[in-house]
């Protein structure tokens, strides 16, 4: 356009030049502004956007919080260990690699490894996980190309088999399989990690007390030895909070060998097995009768054996005269307990068991407790048998919680495996209080339990520990066999609490199939094996729990 007129162009061209120059300067300034703006943005943003993406799906493990006892002593922790893997695409000589690896791992599955390494499209094949450092060095010294290590987290249990049943176990990926470890997965939370980054979560505190747990384990192990028992279980519970301070089932399991725990004789006899516990169940029956207003000295006619259909219920040592309610307890009269239950009636009996949570399955942090086996219909015969502890099979943990509820003044407690911070306990207003029996009933029951230990004719007198005011009830239950009950195979149990004036702790001991010996005067009744074991346990854990023997308490200002 401008080129058509040669006269005009000069002036507008100059003006145009200036405009262009200004435009160039502006554009450049704008570009610089953009660059510096971007720089400022990058500087202000965090450096979190550097991520390494791995195309191959590499198995991850899980970082778990530590486990500690109620005083913070370590029970389980994650440590970083080298794991060996292979990259088949880099391996030069497959046969050489497998052969050399076999020198370090004699138990290597060579056929499977050969097959895995044959697939050159794979970039990642685990060979062995969680190696000890020495073995890792040996593999390193082989100098094979295509083999490499990756640090992984591995759960370790510094206490060995102690509390193995409660802790449970994890799988190769550090995921919970059983026990409290599954509770950590479900409630506390684990993080999937690629390397060996430990969990930042604080340790999970269990209700267990390592000292109590060990003493319990030690005393039960010597009891198994002394009475030639097939197994034993023991439990220490805080009667006010339901916290389990010690839970032992012998034989023990090692948390680092999960497969071992599946063997039937390694079953957790505290939570995973249900048993007809025998006469210790009379605590429940007596509590019901006392709560219904029965006096301790009211008489029960136990002179004639009870018959129902083809069954006849007799007492081991009949007195030959009517008994008082107290005597029904201390002489452990089956007939007496049955009569008391029948007097209450089937509806009341069943409701009472339901109130105590003895009828329905319960769950704890250790996992579900084996469901109780309850008679279908609560007829006369099942009422009679349940009254003295047969016909209703329940896990010892569930029974201990029910007994604790009766002993502690009548407030229902639930068994807990995690540390309950003071103030969170029932009865302090933090949670709903469920009353199962009147406080007077509980006090009377406690007197009976104490009487059973102090009375020269009481079945529990071998459980006494000077100063600790122990009370308790024995139970010798015949184990069901193929043809009815086996007379020589029994579970002898002792349920104790101390100090009986103001009960704080409950101790429950069960010996499975103890044998008669000279020490037990040829008998296998609980008064001669389970009761003294409970006494030894209390003598040992009492000082650990900070309880002053009664004599000293009285002398204190």
């Amino acid at each position, binding site marked *: 356009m401008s080129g058509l007129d040669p006269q005009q162009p000069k002036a507008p061209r100059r003006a145009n030049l200036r405009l262009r120059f200004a435009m160039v300067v502006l554009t450049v300034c704008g570009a610089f502004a953009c660059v510096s703006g971007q720089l400022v943005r990058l500087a202000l943003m965090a450096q979190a956007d550097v991520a390494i993406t791995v195309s191959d799906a590499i198995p991850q493990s899980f970082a778990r919080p530590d486990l500690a006892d109620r005083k913070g002593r370590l029970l389980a922790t994650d440590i970083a260990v080298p794991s060996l893997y292979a990259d088949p695409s880099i391996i030069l000589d497959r046969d050489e690699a497998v052969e050399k690896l076999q020198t370090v791992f004699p138990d290597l599955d060579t056929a499977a490894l050969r097959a895995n390494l044959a697939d050159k499209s794979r970039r990642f094949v685990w060979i062995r996980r969680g190696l000890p450092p020495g073995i890792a060095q040996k593999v390193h010294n082989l100098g094979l190309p295509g083999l490499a290590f990756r640090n992984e987290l591995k759960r370790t249990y510094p206490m060995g088999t102690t509390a193995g049943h409660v802790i449970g176990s994890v799988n190769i990926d550090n995921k919970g399989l059983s026990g409290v470890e599954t509770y950590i997965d479900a409630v506390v939370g684990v993080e999937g990690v690629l390397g060996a980054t430990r969990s930042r979560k604080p340790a999970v505190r269990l209700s267990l007390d390592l*000292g109590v747990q060990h003493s319990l384990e030690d005393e039960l192990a010597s009891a198994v030895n002394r009475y030639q028992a097939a197994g034993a279980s023991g439990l220490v519970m805080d009667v006010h909070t339901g916290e389990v301070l010690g839970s032992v089932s012998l034989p023990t399991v090692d948390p680092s060998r999960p497969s071992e725990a599946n063997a039937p004789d390694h079953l957790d006899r505290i939570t995973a097995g249900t048993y007809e516990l025998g006469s210790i169940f009379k605590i429940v029956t007596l509590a019901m009768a006392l709560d219904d207003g029965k006096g301790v000295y009211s008489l029960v006619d136990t002179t004639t054996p009870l018959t129902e259909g083809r069954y006849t219920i007799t007492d081991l040592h009949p007195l030959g005269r009517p008994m008082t309610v107290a005597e029904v307890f201390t002489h452990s009269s089956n007939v007496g307990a049955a009569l008391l239950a029948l007097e209450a009636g089937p509806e009341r009996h069943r409701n009472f068991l339901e109130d105590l949570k003895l009828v329905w399955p319960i769950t704890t942090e250790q996992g579900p407790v084996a469901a109780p086996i309850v008679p279908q219909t609560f007829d006369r015969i099942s009422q009679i048998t349940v009254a003295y502890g047969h016909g209703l099979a329940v896990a010892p943990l569930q029974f201990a919680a029910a007994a604790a509820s009766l002993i502690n003044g009548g407030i229902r407690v639930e068994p807990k495996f995690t540390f309950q911070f003071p103030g969170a306990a029932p009865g302090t207003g933090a949670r709903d209080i469920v009353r199962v029996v009147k406080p007077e009933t509980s006090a009377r029951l406690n007197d009976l339990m104490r009487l059973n230990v102090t009375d020269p004719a009481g079945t529990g007198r071998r459980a006494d520990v000077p100063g600790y005011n122990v009370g308790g009830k024995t139970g010798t239950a015949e184990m069901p066999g193929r043809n009815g009950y086996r007379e020589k195979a029994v579970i002898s149990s002792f349920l104790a609490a101390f100090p009986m004036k103001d009960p704080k702790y409950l101790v429950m001991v069960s010996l499975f199939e103890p044998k008669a010996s000279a020490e037990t005067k040829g008998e296998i009744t609980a008064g001669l094996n389970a009761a003294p074991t409970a006494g030894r346990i209390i*003598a040992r854990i009492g000082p650990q729990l900070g309880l002053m023997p009664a004599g000293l308490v009285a002398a204190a200002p």
Partner: protein
Amino acid sequence: MRMLTISSVFIALASAFMLYGLNYDTRLTAQNVQSLEKRAEQARSDISVLKAERAHLARPERIEPLARAQGLAPATEAQLQRPQVPSGIVTGSTGTR
């Protein structure tokens, strides 16, 4: 106009040098941070191993025979004494709960 051009050239040069300098500094710092983080992680991992080892050595199963070999035994009720004057040093659970 010329002054502006010349000065902008210098500014451009100077800022280029400065930017490169900053860039290298940043990379160095990032590397430093990474290695420190790695060391911290290593230290944390070492701590966990040491803690596990300490717990393993302090397990009651091991301590008990050692203590018994020294002539020690579980405390009996005869050994317990209630302090006459309330003090901070009290045996048992009062201090730990």
